[in-house]
């Protein structure tokens, strides 16, 4: 009796659970969309690194779209040495440009740069509603992901990720700052001439490891697949480990920088010098005391998006 009731319940539950799409991300069936709400070169470097990884996976720049909130006159000198010249837009045109794209099954949106408690710090700001609307405006897309590396990524959580075109949200941080750490690559990224060109930068820690994973995927959960769920777990754990490693170096320097700043202020040092030490000190303090708390939304779908 009990057994038959349980069986009925299980059948009913199965019949009301919508089928989740499964997708294999290939070189050509996925568009990669990068958004940066920042004017600092370090966030452009996050994108240059990601594109370098995608190229090594065989993804051509035709399938990569950039929306960077930086004056083209200042942005081009960062990108052009690496041969990145295609599909570069202003974030203000995001929804319109994405609506023009065709021929893709999957879309992966990656956000770097700054975030605020009201959205991605572009001009105008990209709100959670606008970003989701822009994703769902992509024609023919079956599934995909929005990966949020910016501060306050948690304001994009609890979106309706299951209806319409289902997607996964991944946040590097919850309702607080995300972290960037100074890194040096043992092998610098090469420019289009083959010369060493980008040996290091202050990298968004979560995104750095996400693309490290994409460069050399590992099956973290042991299910026999390289999935977005593996990417999430790897990136969160590796970023946390990197931050802990950085903290060991940073904590002594904070006191020294604070003393140096006070001394420079007393001496009436130039504004550039005062701003430089204050910026450096603030970054170190953030890295010492902020815990970003990565998160994932629509976790059931993430193992079905495979690389």
């Amino acid at each position, binding site marked *: 009796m009990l057994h038959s009731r349980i069986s009925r319940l299980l059948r009913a539950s199965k019949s009301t659970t919508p089928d989740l799409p499964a997708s294999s991300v290939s070189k050509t069936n996925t568009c990669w969309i990068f958004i940066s709400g920042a004017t600092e070169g370090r966030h452009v470097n996050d994108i240059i690194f990601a594109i370098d990884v995608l190229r090594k996976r065989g993804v051509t720049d035709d399938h990569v779209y950039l929306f960077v909130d930086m004056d083209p006159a200042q942005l081009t000198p960062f990108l052009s040495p690496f041969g990145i010249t295609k599909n570069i837009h202003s974030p203000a045109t995001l929804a319109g440009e994405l609506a023009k794209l065709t021929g893709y099954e999957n879309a992966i949106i990656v956000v770097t740069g700054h975030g605020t408690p009201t959205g991605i710090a572009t001009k105008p700001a990209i709100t959670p509603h606008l970003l989701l609307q822009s994703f769902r405006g992509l024609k023919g897309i079956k599934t995909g992901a929005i990966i949020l590396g910016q501060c306050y990524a948690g304001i994009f959580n609890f979106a309706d990720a299951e209806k319409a075109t289902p997607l996964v949200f991944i946040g590097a941080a919850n309702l607080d700052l995300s972290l960037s750490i100074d890194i040096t690559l043992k092998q610098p990224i090469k420019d289009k001439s083959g010369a060493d060109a980008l040996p290091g930068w202050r990298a968004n820690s979560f995104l750095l490891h996400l693309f490290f994973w994409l*460069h050399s995927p590992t099956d973290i959960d042991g299910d026999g697949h390289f999935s977005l769920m593996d990417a999430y777990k790897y990136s969160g754990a590796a970023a946390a480990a990197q931050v802990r490693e950085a903290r060991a170096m940073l904590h002594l320097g904070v006191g020294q920088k604070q003393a140096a700043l006070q001394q420079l202020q007393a001496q009436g040092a130039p504004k550039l010098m005062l701003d430089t030490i204050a910026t450096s000190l603030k970054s170190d303090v953030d890295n010492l005391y902020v815990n970003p708390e990565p998160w994932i939304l629509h976790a059931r779908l993430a193992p079905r998006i495979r690389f």
Partner: protein
Amino acid sequence: MKTARKVDLSRLPVEVKQLINAGVYALYTIRGEDALYALVTDKREFYLLSAAGDVTKDARFKDLNSIPFGEVVTFPDLPSTSSIKVNYA
């Protein structure tokens, strides 16, 4: 992308050069100028620098929009005190 040595722009403090390498600040050459650089901070303030690295003024360049930005300049031989080495090839 232009590679400078850490001893170039010798009067520019090492702390500023470290933020340039980190990508927090951006240092550009200026097209048509051999001895002038533009430094843009994370707060979008800009400074014109002489070849020696001193902050200077030039009436032709009143705001960011008036600067013909050339190449990005970095100092790859300048060690970072807190940088983490990571494998990537």
